[in-house]
């Protein structure tokens, strides 16, 4: 076995991002979609960290922290919205939330 190269990291990130994308597009449960979005974000984070390591530059780390912060906020707000929706409608199925198309 050779050493773990940049290619391995990026490959893993691509796979994670793809899984996340399939989850976002395919699942109907809003909570699962949320988790998939987190997966996408972390895939990107992984890619950033890998490139930062490879090029020995710290800039990308700043972006990573930024993404983590935004993801935390997004999760807090999004989950609060979902709880409210669930209280009103007793469902978190995305296909039931189409009121705006009228």
């Amino acid at each position, binding site marked *: 076995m050779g050493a773990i190269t940049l290619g391995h990291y990026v490959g893993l990130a691509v796979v994670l991002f793809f899984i996340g*994308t399939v989850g*976002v*597009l*395919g699942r109907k449960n809003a909570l699962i*979609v949320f988790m998939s979005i987190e997966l996408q974000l972390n895939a990107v984070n992984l890619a950033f960290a890998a490139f930062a390591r490879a090029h020995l530059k710290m800039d990308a780390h700043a972006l990573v922290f930024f993404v983590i912060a935004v993801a935390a906020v997004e999760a807090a707000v999004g989950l609060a919205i979902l709880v409210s929706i669930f209280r009103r409608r007793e469902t978190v199925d*995305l*296909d039931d*939330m*189409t*009121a*705006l*198309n*009228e």
Partner: protein
Amino acid sequence: MSVSFLWLIPFFPLLGSVVNGVIALSTSHRPHAAGRGAVSVIGCAAPILSFLVTAAAFLQLRGLPVDGRALTQSLYTWIAAGRLSVEAGFLFDPLSCAMLLFVTGIGSLIHIYSIGYMGHDRGYARYFAYLNLFTFSMVLLVLGDSLLTMFVGWEGVGLCSYLLIGFWFGDEEKAIAGNKAFIVNRIGDFGFLLGIFLIFWALTGDGKVGLGYGEIREAAHQHRFAPGLLTAACLLLFMGATGKSAQLPLYVWLPDAMAGPTPVSALIHAATMVTSGVYMVSRLSFLFIEAPVALTVVAIVGAATAFFAATIGLAQNDIKKVLAYSTVSQLGYMFLGVGVGAFSAGMFHVVTHAFFKACLFLGAGSVIHALSGEQDIRKMGGLLKRIPRTGWTFIAAWLAICGIFPFAGFFSKDEILWKVWSEPNTIIPWLPKLLWAVAFVTAGITAFYMTRLVAMVFLGRERISSEAKSHLHESPSSMTIPLILLAAGSTLIGFIGVPEFIVEGGNRFHHWLEPALAATHGGGVHVAHGAALEAALMALSLLIAVAGIAAAWHFYLRRPELPGRIAAAVPGLYRAVAGKYFVDEAYEAAVVRPIREGSRLVLWRIVDVRVIDFAVNLVGMLSRVASTFVRLVQSGYVQFYAAVILIGVAVLLWVML
């Protein structure tokens, strides 16, 4: 000479206006709780302080050598746009000094009078806010050192005039009178503005143009204006004056302006604002003197207005309407004076007229106040015994306007008459004699209708309704003291302009204004060979004034049944005069109704409904139709949107990489 205190003159009234305006707004829901004492003090202190500063400036100006008699103050560069570079600045020269002294002086008296007259009104603070704002605008008009500053004041006084005519806007008729004054003034202002544009256009050379009086004067001296252009510019400026100063054909608003409170009629529509047209022509005398055609038009319009309005004044029965037509007529006199190139004579009449007409209007206000709002002179009579202070001051002003020696009107009216006779006209040689004849007859008519007014109000049999009689009282001293001061002024002010043939150097007013005005071609006041002629004409005009008074005395006191019989003998003529020659009706038919009907049928039914509304509706309809298709994309399925985003990003990446 540059000084730094001139800004105080307009500043005090502006401050008073702002403070009183704030008081008026903050107490509008409980008008009787408003601090009337504070409003009175602020409202009256503002013009009085301005007057004191003006007086101080006058004393300083008098100490200067004749050639350098001008105080200036430059504030800042007001407009800088391309070739136009206007300084905001003030010019205090003998002309603006003479104007300002009586604007702030008589203005102060009228403010004080208003304390008594408006004492019971709900809009007390609002009234003083407007009145202070008017004083500010008028000071700006007079004190400004360029045409544009004058224009700001010009519009400001127009606005205040509108606000104060429609002061009791709850009464629809009064609100309409305010609108009429504003709209008619706008017609004149349009010409005024075009005149300014023309002058700007003519001055645009290589350098910057500031539209300052000094600059225009310089250009006029160097003959940089083409004659035709100069005549056009002067005529357009005079068109503004016909609106503001109520001359033919735009005088119609002034009689209706009597809907405002009486002190307003005295201040704005008799003493100050309406004379600003005369001031403007005098201020630009060096321009008008180069345009003899325009000047001749000014003289003809002035004489025609003087005669025309005086005849209407003969048959009016509202005390304020008589005075209003008298004002129009006297303004005509002033324009006749400046129109023959006798600018100082015109300005002299402005000053004396300010005293006696303010006194007459305030006296009329006192009469109306005493009679609980009655304005019909047929329901007055014998009031001299009842309200003696008002009566005797009114009589002093009456003698002044009739031109009886030694009252003020005698000197100023005679100077105009003499100038009209003696100044040659280069375009129409026989015109001076004709104009003199018209002015001479007008003097007789003036004496007649003013005597009629005095006779019907103060003398003869009492015709007062019993209800008004029970409340009959002399006005408070805040009203009678200004009256007494104005009556004293009407009696004495004429002595600042004694004709030169009586006392050498006696016409001090003329010599005072000399450095600020263009010299007349006839050689100023010194016409050596004309002394005997001048004395003869003077005696003649005194004679016709006395004749007018005697005739009216006979008609309205000795044989009061005669006027009715004469009116019955020439019913058509009487109806025409009493109906003001139906000018209002003619304007209504020729101008107002076509505009209104045209607006209704063409502008509203076709342009507004068929074009503008249609275009707006069309846009709405188009977007609605388009959106019925576009909205299908907005399905509401979040995952559909996410997929679209993904596809979009993929396409972008594919294109970019």
